[in-house]
C-alpha cells in the first residue's frame, strides 16, 4: 500500500479506536443501518475500504454526512468493529482539513427540537464542529 494511504488509514484507525481486521464481513452493519437508503457507500464497505486504504474515496463520500450516529451498527456488530466510529473518524478528518465549523454552540438553541434525542444532538455537534 502507498505510504500516504497507509498513514491515512492508520489515522482513521487511531481516531476511531477500531481494529478493521476484526471484521468478518457479515454485513450486519449494513443490515441494521436506518440511513442506508441515503448512502452511496454502505456501512460495511467503510470497514473494508479503511482496511484497503481507500480513505480519499471515503472522505468524498456522501455517506459520512448521512450517518445519523444512531450506533445500531456498533450495537449489533458481532465482532466489535464499530463502523459508526470509523465514519465519525472520517468526518473528523474531513473537518480538520476544511478548517471550518458547520455548527456553533450559539446556534444550537434555535435548532433545538424536543423530539431530537440527546445523543443525536451531541453527535451532530461533534460531527459539524471542530
Amino acid at each position, binding site marked *: 500500500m502507498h505510504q500516504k494511504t497507509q498513514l491515512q488509514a492508520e489515522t482513521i484507525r487511531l481516531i476511531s479506536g477500531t481494529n478493521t481486521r*476484526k471484521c*468478518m*464481513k*457479515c*454485513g*450486519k*452493519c*449494513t*443490515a*441494521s*443501518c436506518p440511513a*442506508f*437508503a441515503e448512502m452511496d457507500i*454502505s456501512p*460495511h*464497505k467503510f470497514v473494508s475500504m479503511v482496511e484497503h486504504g481507500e480513505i480519499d474515496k471515503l472522505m468524498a463520500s456522501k455517506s459520512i454526512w448521512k450517518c445519523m450516529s444512531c450506533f*445500531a451498527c456498533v450495537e*449489533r*456488530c*458481532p*465482532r*466489535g468493529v464499530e463502523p459508526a466510529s470509523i465514519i465519525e473518524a472520517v468526518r473528523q478528518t474531513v473537518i480538520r482539513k476544511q478548517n471550518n465549523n458547520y455548527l456553533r454552540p450559539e446556534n444550537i438553541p434555535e435548532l433545538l427540537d424536543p423530539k431530537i434525542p440527546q445523543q443525536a444532538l451531541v453527535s451532530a455537534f461533534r460531527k459539524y464542529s471542530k
Partner: protein
Amino acid sequence: MQRIGVFVCWCGTNIAATVDIDTVVEAMKYEPGVVHASDYQYMCSEAGQSKIKQAIKEHNLTGIVVCACSPRMHETTFRKAAKAAGLNQYMVEIANIREHCAWIHKDRKEATEKAVVLARTAVAKLNLNTPLTPGESSVVKRALVIGGGIAGIQSALDIAEAGYEVDIVEKQPTIGGKMAQLDKTFPTLDCAACILTPKMVDAASHENINLYTYSEVDSVGGFVGNFNVKIRKKARSVKADICSGCGICTEKCPSRKAENEFNLGLNKRGAIYIPFAQAIPNVPVIDRDQCIKFKTGKCGLCAKVCPADAIDFSQQDEIVEKQYGAVVLATGFNPIKLDNFDEFGYSQSKDVITSLELERIMNAAGPTGGKLLRPSDNGHPHTMVFVQCVGSRDTTGCGKTYCSKICCMYTAKHAMLIREKYPDVDVHVFYIDVRTPGKNFDEFYRRAAEDYGVNYIKGMVGKVAPTNGKLLVQGSDLIADRQLVIEADMVVLATAIEPDQTAKSLATMLTASIDTNNFFTEAHPKLRPVESPTAGVFLSGVCQGPKDIPETVAQASAAAVKVIGLLSKDKLMCNPCVANSNELLCNGCSNCQHVCPYGAIDYVEKEFRAGGKTSLRRVAQVNEAICQGCGACTVVCPSGAMDLKGFTNQQIMAEVDAICR
C-alpha cells in the same frame, strides 16, 4: 554421583532455527554429573531414541536429560526409551526448549542462553533424582456414562458389547437427548427417531446396561479405576417397577398448564407426563411444581385411574452409591438464550423461532402434527427467512466466539424440506459463510440452492420488526451491495449452541478441565481427542465441542474404545510421584492430613528405638495408591518430613538455584 547424558533435539528447524544446538551441547558437557552430551535432528524418532539407548549403554548412564519439546508431549516416549535401555524410567528429565524457548523467542543469542539455563536446570534436578517404582491399583470393571443422548447411548452400547457393565445417568425422565427432538437428519434426510429409537431400545434391553433416568450425579470421589460416585435418583412419584406405561394417568391429569419441554414450550402437557411416545423408560413422572395434589393436597386422580397402583406421592429422592473404573462425559448441549439478541424479535413475536423449535414443528409427532404452521395464528406461511450465526462467532460477549458448526447444514436441511413439502413457500437464508466440510455436505447445501431454489443471501439480518401480523426483516445483501427488507411470515434463527450447564459442576467434581466456553478440554487437541486430561475420564459428543451426529457417534465409539482398553486391565500402574513421609522427622501434627484432598494420609503409633530406649510416636503414613501427588501436604509440614517423590524440596530448590546461578 550420577552419570548423566544430555540429548539435545533440533526438532528439525523448530528448535535449531532459534537455538544454537552446538552451544547447548558444549555447555552441558561441563555441568556436574554430565558424562555425555549429543544432539540429533529428531530425538523422538526411532533413530533418535536408539541413539539415546545406545548412549545409555555405552556410557553407563544413570539418568538422561532430553532437551526437546514439552514433557507433556514426549516425556512418555523418552521414558519408554530409557526403560528399554535398562534405566529406571523416572531417571529422565525433559528440558522444554521448544514451547518454552525456541518458539517464543526470536533473538538467537537470547534463546540459546535460555536453552542452556533450562538444560542445566534439568541436569540439576536429575542429579537428585532417585529411581521410582510405580505402585499398582485395581480396576473396577464398570463404566459410568453421564448423559443419555446419542453420544452416551453409543458409548454405553459399545462398552456393554465388549462385556463390561455400564450405567447411564440421564437427568431427563427419558434417554434420547437432543436427537430425539429432531425431525430429519442431514445429509441423508432419514428420520431421526427411526435411527435413534432402536438404539434407545437396545440400550434399555442390554443386559450390561443399567439406566438411571431422572437422575443426577451428586458427587464423585476416588480416581481412575476406582471412582466412587453418588447418584441421586430423583423422585418420579411413580413406581417404575410396577408401572406398565399404559399412559392413562397422563391422559386423565386435569392440570394442563405446564409447558411441554420436549416441544420447547410450543404446547402444554399434564403434570404427570411421559416426554414423548417412544420414551425409555416408558414410565411417567410427576412434575411436583405443577401437580395439583402436591400444590393443594387435593386431586390424586392419577392414583385413582392407575390400573397398576403405581403412583406413589410419598416417593423420596434416592441416593445410589456405586464404584466405577471409568467415566464417560456425554452431557451434550443446549441452544443459548436469546436475551442479548433483541434485534431478531424473538421475544416480541411467536413467529420468530429457533431452529430446534422448527424441528418440533416439522416433526410428525410434534405440536402441529408435522404441518408447517405459523405459531401465532396457525396460518400457512408464504415467506420464511432463516438467519444463520445467531449468537455464534460473536466476540462482543453477547454470544459465543466459536462457530456452532451444525447450523449451516441443518438450515440447508430445513430450507430443503420446506421447499420440497411446500413449494409455494419462499425461503431466504441469510448467511455470513456457508461451512459444509463433511462427506456429501457441500453437495447437500448446493442441492438446496440449485435444485430446491432456496435463496441464499450473503449478508446478515439487522432487524426483525413485527408489523401488522408480518415480520419485516431488514437485512443486507453484500453481493448486490444493498439493503433489503423482506416481508416474512416466519423467521428461523440458527441459534448458537453451548455446553449443558451441568458440565461445569461435573468438571469440578471430576477435576476434569473445561475451557473458557465450558466445553470439556481434551488431553491433547489432536492426539488424544476423546480423553480428558484427568485419567479415567473420557469425552463423548458435544460436551467436548460442537459436532454433528456422525461425528458425535464416531467420538462416542472412540471414547468407548478407550474405556474398554482401561477396563480390560486388571491392574493400573499408579503415579509413583507421590507424597512420602520421613517417619524420623514426622511430628505427628496432622497438618498434612487436614489438607489432603484424597484422604490418603493416615496416622499410626509406631515404635522407635533411640539411645537404647523404645518410644511410641504418632507418625504419618501415605497410602500410595490413593495419593495423586499434588504436594499440598509437603508445604504444611513444619518439619519437612513430608516430601513429594519426583518433585522433592531438594530437587525444586536445585532447579531454583540452577536458574538463578
